[in-house]
């Protein structure tokens, strides 16, 4: 019973993080019909930015509200800028080309980032060595939120623990998701986004600045990803170049399970995946973790290819 509750809590915590990343996939897919393969790697870059900021900030600011905010804000801004750059220079020139070209480009960017970051590259300036690329080894992520058992229930060998970072990440993620839902359905930008997602040519004819809307979507998605990445790094207490690829893939799976292009669907899919993974790992062995998501994906595609909340979209003829 305690074990079950513990898995439930861990699964939900992991699920909320997947959800934040999945939202980025789903939004970009919504407006561009492109699987932004590089999304997870943008997230990874964001985590390294956060790592650098925390490192420069110094240990004394860890655990303070201002310190945490600084790390998150800088990392999210950097990621938004990075997402904007990728969209501008890699995807925009290919927008009217066959869809395969953008897909290949996205795969290429993902590959370049996740393996580029595995190189060791440092320059020596004035006697100090500056690390440019971090190298393949996994690094310990600084404890910017000092871990602490927020809630404990039960006796020593059989207990349910809720950590403070689980609560914090759950709250942050929930707030961001609600904010996103409001943004999409209650603001002008959201309305423009939905119009572009319906048909970007018609939207352009109606005077919607399509380029800006798409760029905005990328920035938003990337910022959410950075936030999710930091939460994940805090949970895992480590950061490594391949994390983007793995988390990104799982988040994508979550988006597909929920019905890609559907915002609440992505959240539900992510929570389902987080729980599923946690239960399989909890009751079998952790080495199966990476296989769970894809097994789940294949099952969903077999039974309900449009996802749980998606609708079959016929191509316009």
């Amino acid at each position, binding site marked *: 019973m305690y074990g079950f509750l513990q898995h439930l809590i861990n699964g939900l915590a992991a699920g909320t993080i997947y959800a934040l990343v999945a939202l980025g996939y789903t939004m970009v897919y919504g407006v561009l019909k492109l699987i932004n393969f590089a999304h997870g790697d943008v997230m990874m870059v964001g985590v390294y930015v956060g790592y650098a900021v925390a490192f420069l900030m110094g240990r004394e600011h860890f655990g303070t509200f201002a310190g945490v905010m600084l790390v998150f804000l800088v990392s999210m801004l950097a990621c938004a800028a990075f997402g904007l750059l990728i969209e501008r220079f890699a995807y925009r020139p290919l927008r009217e*080309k066959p869809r395969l070209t953008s897909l*290949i*480009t996205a795969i*290429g960017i993902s590959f370049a*980032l996740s*393996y580029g970051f595995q190189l060791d590259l440092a320059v020596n300036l004035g006697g100090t060595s500056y690390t440019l690329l971090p190298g393949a080894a996994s690094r310990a992520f600084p404890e910017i939120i000092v871990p602490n058992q927020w809630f404990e229930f039960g006796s020593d060998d059989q207990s349910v623990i809720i950590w403070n970072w689980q609560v914090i990440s759950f709250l942050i993620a929930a707030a961001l998701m609600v904010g996103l839902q409001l943004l999409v359905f209650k603001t002008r930008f959201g309305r423009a986004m939905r119009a572009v997602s319906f048909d970007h040519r018609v939207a352009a004819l109606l005077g919607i600045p399509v380029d800006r809307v798409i760029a905005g979507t990328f920035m938003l998605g990337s910022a959410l990803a950075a936030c999710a990445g930091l939460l994940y790094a805090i949970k895992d207490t480590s950061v490594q170049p391949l994390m983007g690829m793995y988390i990104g*893939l799982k988040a994508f799976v979550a988006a597909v399970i929920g019905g890609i292009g559907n915002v609440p669907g992505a959240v539900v899919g992510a929570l389902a995946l987080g729980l599923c993974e946690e239960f399989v790992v909890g009751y079998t062995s952790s*080495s199966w973790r990476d296989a769970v998501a894809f097994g789940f994906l*294949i099952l969903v595609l077999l039974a309900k290819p449009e996802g749980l909340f998606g609708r079959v979209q016929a191509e316009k003829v």
Partner: protein
Amino acid sequence: MIRGAAPAILAAVGCIALQALLGEWAFFGYLASLVGVNVILAVSLNVINGMTGQFSIGHAGFMAVGAYTGGILSLATAQDRIGVLPEVVSDQLFLVGSLCAGGTVAALCGLIVGLPSLRLRGDYLAIVTLGFGEIIRVIVQNTQALGGALGLSGVPQRAGFGMVWFWVFLVVLMARRLAASPHGRSLWAIREDEVAAEAMGVDTTSYKVRAFVLSSFFAGVAGALFAHFVPIVNPGSFTFVKSMEIVVMIVAGGLGSTTGAFTAAVFLTLLPEGMRSLFTTLGGGDPSLAQKVDQVRMPIYGVLLVLIMLTRPQGIFGTHEAWDAVARWRKKARA
């Protein structure tokens, strides 16, 4: 039928002769086999990614399935012999059996992966195949009978480069004949316009699935061949990096061109090998410099993909084929 199979029979004779002539030259044999395996992988992946316009990025997964199936079979039959035949012939027959088994199991996996994902739009296949590669890796690492993370060793080293290049010939012949058949034309049609193809009575899902099964079969054979000339088969040989390497080959060669896939596979296999030996020599026998160069290779592949898409999405050859050029040239010469 006999006439149709004639090129393959001729090729078999040629490959046996070459093997007999150059078989003693170990370095050449190893390199030629490596190149051959990559050519088989690239040409077969081109059937699904190039001709059909779908996008699989998990070819290494099917290669792994073939390698482990073939390897396990050969391990189990390592001591067996068909009595009446000379040892070499018997061994080679067992090898062919293992190769076909590896290909068949990989093809079945292709069916399982392809059926759900190919009914959907092309980009789903990318994710599902990538996921498949990961599942295979996890399964292999967790199965003691397959050697776990350490890998499988002791597979009899029966595959000479002659055998490898015989399969290279087969896969190229297959690709060429496929492209010129009704089946191939339907694949091109799907690549051009799936809605129109469907409206013209082409069962797009079925064609895509069959193309994928065929592609997986040859990936499996390539894997099984690989297992029979490298000392250890371990999960590390079939990672996402391997899949990407093949994707880069066919994208650079030109999606849809068998000639392009072939050329790029040869070039992109020899280049890093050449660099590695060059830098090992430069480093005075110290392999660390060569390892550095090897690491840089992967980000370069990623950047290369982006650059090709931005500047020349049709790759080197587009969809042109060497044999078409030859046919045109001969026609001109006759006129």
